[in-house]
């Protein structure tokens, strides 16, 4: 057969090259992936160590102590000893809050033990399962007990000692326990460091405060209180306190935690709050889960209303609670229990933690303690956090800070001692997800040193003198906060919005609108002038509750911290002569936004206090027309700069990406593959195979060659593998084996030689939102080649789209897209033009035109490769043809060789007679009959002579032409296909 001859031996069939590139590329990619994943795993480096905490060994102990003024009262203290992994270690004594027991501080003890301290949590006398009665941190009782606990600690082999009988020990505790820490440190020099939390300095000023003084407030600290004598009984809180000592349950220290910086979701906070018992672990806490056993009727006699209080304490409370005034005896009793009596003897470094949401023990209490310790030369650091008795217990970060304090001063950690300093938390007024808190750090608590002074800004207030009346019975009363609401998380937030002033009882003075934000840090001060109103009832003294509201532009008032300053002004002349009084307002940390105003309100009643029951009328006016607001500038506690792990990770990622890109670029550079012998041959396909996973072989060992000037038709029924072959030619699909060379260059994806091919394969690809002309222009622009090479005009002329080129391609018909696609393929007049079924969708004149175009194109010495499933199309357009079926080459050769030659076909009315007539002609070879058709090898005789002979023989000739052997073959193939 001829096609065998066409499978030309002169085509160098290149053996399939060794295919080692692919695995190497894969290895590289896998390596890159592994490195990248490792880098990602580097994120582990920043994750906090969340390993399961080591179990803490505990031991329940009963410690016998002897106390009392005469050292003759035996008391058994119930305690739990927490042991860290490594002993001996410094110890921390943990005292609980009022109404709590050793179990309410179990978590704190565990946390400290985990940090490497030996912790001793104990129930104070009168609480939990300790015996004895509550003496309110009396030096003779509670403090004496604690001293004997230090003795006990010194005897334990697990505790580091500084000398015989002197343990290395710190003391901490909240509220009642914090006061014990201060009292113990001021009494016993063996204490090495303390961290009292939200506690009092002077119990008199805490329970019977007077924030107004006729003199000057000399302290220069930010939250100094007036601490004047003869105050107003803080009825609400005192009652909560006292009842906690009656029943034993409850507790005055809040269990939920205060918000801290860095917390984003509110639900992150309330975990592991202090005082949540951790029972059931079998570590000897049996019974500890029960609320502390109330001994409603202690065996030591006394009235049941006194609960577990010592008689003198009970008596003092009953007296104050019923009269609303503290007698000198009661004042003396409370003062003896106050740290203020010993603060000048505290030499242990003190971390004073005070809450900004605390109407029981406000910032003024810690302020006084700090002043007294510093004046005596002690080391004191002050921390104001967002919690307090109204706001919540210290959160994990603050507890960590307390642990660090002990670590530094008890010798568990190397590094700098924290020393003096001041930190305060600012809770944002607005929140995104949960409370947003920042911590501001100042190098020192201002006003402690001679040289330092608290910066104060005077803010103008305006308002006329106002007459306020005290209602009989002190009712209705203004509401500022509700003690005990702190039991509810967020309760502190509630109290801020709760403020209510009954009409007629409040004098109001308002500031101008703030131009810029003002961060109030401490206790503002204001001077008021109070006088009796002649002719109206009065009793020579006035009780006022002064508070400072933050008023928003919409008039909404917020009472920051919920605190009020109770003021008792005595010695009011009946003639209306005013008495001037300096009022120290409750200490707050409050960012007052620009556009807001401050409002000073003086009311005659407050729900939390013992209000005067006698009706009275007073006049209140501003003495200075201004409120003095403390400011403590500082810098924000930073997050410690850039974390090293992620920075290293970022660098790793950048380096890995750079290396991989570099590697790929180098590999591409050396991928050129040239066969110089074929440099002038437009296309050589050798042994080309494409098989897909799953067994389908689209192209199977295909080899052919196209020479310059040819119009080659790639003929085959649908599914013969034509389009796949063309895709491989364009570098879109990788051959499974074999190769394609265009002008000697091996075709691979992106091979530069592809720029000499113009192609249209399967479907046109245009941007539907652009016009035809724009599509061509942008396509050529994408090639980056000079615009003058494009020959857009010629291409458009060939496409024959006329004005339609200025329409969006999205509106084109199939035929128009087809012609535009052919024009696009011809852009730049490529040396090899590849067209896949170019006449699909064209009408006959256009098909005719296209044939002419392709012929002319090849005539210039360029090459055209056309695929088609129509034999007639190939016959009329192409000079050469390759027939494919099932991916294999079936036939190949010049069209003339395959379709023409000497053989002729005649369609006649009488085939037998025609055959006879033809056989009689001289030189005619084989003659066959096929129905109405007769085939004959004319062997040089012209078809016209043969027709003349047939007509002469009386045969009617319908049709005469060359015999279409190719068609026979092809129809056979297509027929097969149809059957399938």
């Amino acid at each position, binding site marked *: 057969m001829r096609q065998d001859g066409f499978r030309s031996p002169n085509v160098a069939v290149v053996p399939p090259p060794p295919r080692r590139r692919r695995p190497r590329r894969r290895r590289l990619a896998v390596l890159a992936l592994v490195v990248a994943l490792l880098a990602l795993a580097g994120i582990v480096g920043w994750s906090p160590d969340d390993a399961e905490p080591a179990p803490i060994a505990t031991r329940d102990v009963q410690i016998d102590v002897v106390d009392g003024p005469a050292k003759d009262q035996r008391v058994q203290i119930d305690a739990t000893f927490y042991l860290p992994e490594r002993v001996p270690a410094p110890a921390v004594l943990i005292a609980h809050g009022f109404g709590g027991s050793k179990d309410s501080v179990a978590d704190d003890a565990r946390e400290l033990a985990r940090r490497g301290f030996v912790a001793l949590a104990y129930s104070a006398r009168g609480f939990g399962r300790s015996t004895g009665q509550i003496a309110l941190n009396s030096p003779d009782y509670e403090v004496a007990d604690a001293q004997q606990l230090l003795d006990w600690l010194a005897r334990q082999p697990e505790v580091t000692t500084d000398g015989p009988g002197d343990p290395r020990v710190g003391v901490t505790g909240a509220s009642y326990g914090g006061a014990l820490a201060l009292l113990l440190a001021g009494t016993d020099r063996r204490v090495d460091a303390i961290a009292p939390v939200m506690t009092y300095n002077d119990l008199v000023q805490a329970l019977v405060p007077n924030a107004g003084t006729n003199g000057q407030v000399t302290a220069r600290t930010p939250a100094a209180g007036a601490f004047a004598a003869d105050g107003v009984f803080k009825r609400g809180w005192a009652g909560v306190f006292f009842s906690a000592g009656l029943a034993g349950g409850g507790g005055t220290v809040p269990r939920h935690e205060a918000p801290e910086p860095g917390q984003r979701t509110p639900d992150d906070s309330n975990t592991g709050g202090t005082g949540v018992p951790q029972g059931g672990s079998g570590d000897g806490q049996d019974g500890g889960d029960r609320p502390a056993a109330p001994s409603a009727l202690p065996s030591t006699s006394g009235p049941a209303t006194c609960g577990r209080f010592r008689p003198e304490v009970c008596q003092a409370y009953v007296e104050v609670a019923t009269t609303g005034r503290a007698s000198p005896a009661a004042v003396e009793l409370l003062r003896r229990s106050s740290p203020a009596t010993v603060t000048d003897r505290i030499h242990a470094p003190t971390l004073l933690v005070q809450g900004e949401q605390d109407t029981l023990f406000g910032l003024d209490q810690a302020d006084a303690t700090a002043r007294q310790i510093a004046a005596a030369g002690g080391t004191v650091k002050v921390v104001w956090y967002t919690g307090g008795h109204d706001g919540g217990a210290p959160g994990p970060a603050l507890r960590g800070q307390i642990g660090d304090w002990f670590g530094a001063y008890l010798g568990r950690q190397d590094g700098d001692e924290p020393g003096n300093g001041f930190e305060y938390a600012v809770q944002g007024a607005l929140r*995104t997800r949960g409370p947003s808190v920042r911590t501001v750090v100042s190098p020192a608590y201002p006003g402690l040193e001679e040289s330092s002074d608290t910066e104060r800004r005077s803010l103008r207030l305006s308002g006329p003198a106002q007459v306020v009346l005290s209602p009989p019975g002190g009712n209705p009363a203004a509401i500022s906060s509700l003690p005990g609401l702190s039991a509810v998380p967020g309760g502190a937030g509630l109290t801020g919005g709760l403020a209510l002033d009954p009409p007629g009882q409040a004098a109001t003075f308002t500031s101008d609108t703030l131009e810029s934000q003002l961060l109030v840090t401490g206790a503002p001060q204001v001077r008021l002038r109070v006088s009796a109103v002649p002719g109206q009832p009065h009793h020579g003294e006035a009780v006022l509750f002064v508070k400072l509201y933050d008023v928003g532009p919409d008039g909404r008032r917020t009472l920051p911290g919920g605190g009020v300053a109770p003021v008792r002004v005595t010695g009011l002349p009946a003639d209306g002569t005013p008495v001037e009084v300096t009022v120290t307002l409750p200490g707050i940390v409050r960012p007052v936004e620009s556009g807001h105003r401050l409002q000073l309100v003086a009311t005659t009643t407050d729900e939390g206090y013992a209000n005067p029951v006698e009706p009275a009328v007073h006049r209140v006016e501003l003495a200075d027309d201004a409120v003095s607001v403390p400011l403590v500038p500082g810098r924000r506690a930073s997050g410690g700069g850039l974390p090293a792990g992620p920075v290293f990770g970022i660098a790793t990622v950048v380096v890995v990406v750079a290396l991989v890109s570099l590697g790929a670029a180098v590999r591409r550079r050396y991928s050129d593959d040239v066969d110089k012998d074929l440099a002038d041959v437009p296309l050589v396909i050798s042994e080309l195979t494409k098989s897909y996973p799953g067994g389908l072989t689209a192209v199977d060992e295909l080899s052919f060659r196209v020479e310059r000037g040819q119009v080659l038709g790639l003929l085959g029924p649908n599914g013969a593998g034509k389009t796949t072959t063309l895709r491989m030619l*364009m570098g879109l699909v990788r051959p499974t084996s074999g190769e394609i060379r265009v002008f000697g260059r091996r075709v691979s994806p992106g091979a530069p030689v592809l720029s000499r091919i113009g192609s249209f394969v399967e479907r046109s690809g245009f941007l539907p939102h652009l016009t035809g002309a*724009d599509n061509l222009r942008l396509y050529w622009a994408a090639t980056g080649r000079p615009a003058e090479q494009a020959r857009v005009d010629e291409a458009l002329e*060939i496409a024959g789209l006329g004005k339609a080129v200025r329409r969006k391609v999205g509106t084109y018909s199939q035929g128009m897209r087809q012609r535009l696609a052919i024009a696009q393929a011809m852009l730049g007049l490529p040396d090899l033009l590849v067209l896949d079924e170019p006449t699909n969708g064209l009408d006959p004149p256009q098909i005719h035109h296209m044939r002419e175009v392709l012929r002319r194109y090849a005539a210039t010495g360029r090459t055209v490769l056309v695929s088609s499933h129509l034999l007639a199309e190939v016959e009329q357009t192409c000079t050469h043809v390759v027939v494919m079926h099932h991916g294999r080459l079936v036939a190949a050769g010049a069209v003339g060789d395959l379709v023409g030659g000497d053989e002729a076909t005649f369609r006649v009315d009488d085939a037998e007679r025609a055959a006879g007539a033809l056989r009689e002609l001289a030189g005619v070879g084989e003659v066959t009959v096929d129905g109405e058709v007769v085939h004959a090898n004319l062997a040089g005789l012209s078809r016209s002579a043969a027709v003349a002979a047939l007509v002469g023989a009386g045969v009617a000739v319908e049709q005469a032409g060359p015999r279409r052997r190719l068609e026979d073959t092809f129809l056979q193939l297509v027929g097969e296909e149809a059957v399938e």
Partner: protein
Amino acid sequence: MSEAGTAYTLPELPGPVAEPPNPDGSATGYRARHTLRLRVELARQLRRRRTQLTLGFLALLPFLLLLAFELGSDERNRRSGGLVDLATASGTNFVSFALFASANFLLVVVVALFFGDTVASEASWSSLKYLLAVPVPRHRLLRQKAVVSGLLSLLGLVLLPLVALGVGVAWYGLGELVTPAGEAMSLGAGVGRLALAVGYLALHLTWVAGLALLLSVSTDAPLGAVGGAVLASILSQILDSITALGDLRQYLPTHYTLAWADLLTTDVDWGDMTRGVFSALAYAAVFGLLAFRRFATKDITS
């Protein structure tokens, strides 16, 4: 086809150049590094309705927000609320709210759209194969498309806060930027911080870009690529909201989405933002390298 007419003229075609002058065997004037230049690809993308609508919507959003605030409750400056109340405090606050409102979802969609659509849409129009037949080398095609998608995303990312700043300043004035932590910053400082926030968001969203690009080269359906990336983001956000997962959550690509809020303080804590950038870049690198590898070896059949 009436406009096509039937009278064809055939132009005279010049003969071919005798020998290709380029040593790599390419046609005259062809240089791989000149193919699909950025401005060409930019022109291709900018003329798309999709691009115009997306950018237009981002520019329109601040006006919609403004309208919502003006039509809504007039209880401005409520202290207990969230960033919504903060939004009307000043022009810069309005910008921070606009960023906050769009960072979680809208910007993710925008980035996913630009990156996810870029190759997949070419595949769906069949124009991809003609670009590759130019030939635009595959790595170059993906790189140029990624760069242009990045530029468009960045444009959108800058457009939104810029328009919001204009609208905010016009309506709510040149006041201080009040931060969620209760601090106030001057207009200049506030604008600087917001610019840094946009920078962080741009880096943080690279993981979406990488994933969308990977999906874009893996499918011929643009919607699938865009939707897949957005879906992954939503899934990650859902998982991130499960607090029980604890520290595992920080491996989620969206875990640090809001870390830019740390910029809204006077002393910035860079910790979470650094982690966020690392997390995003690590994901982007893995997805991006996979995308390039996949695209370099893939058979283009569309």
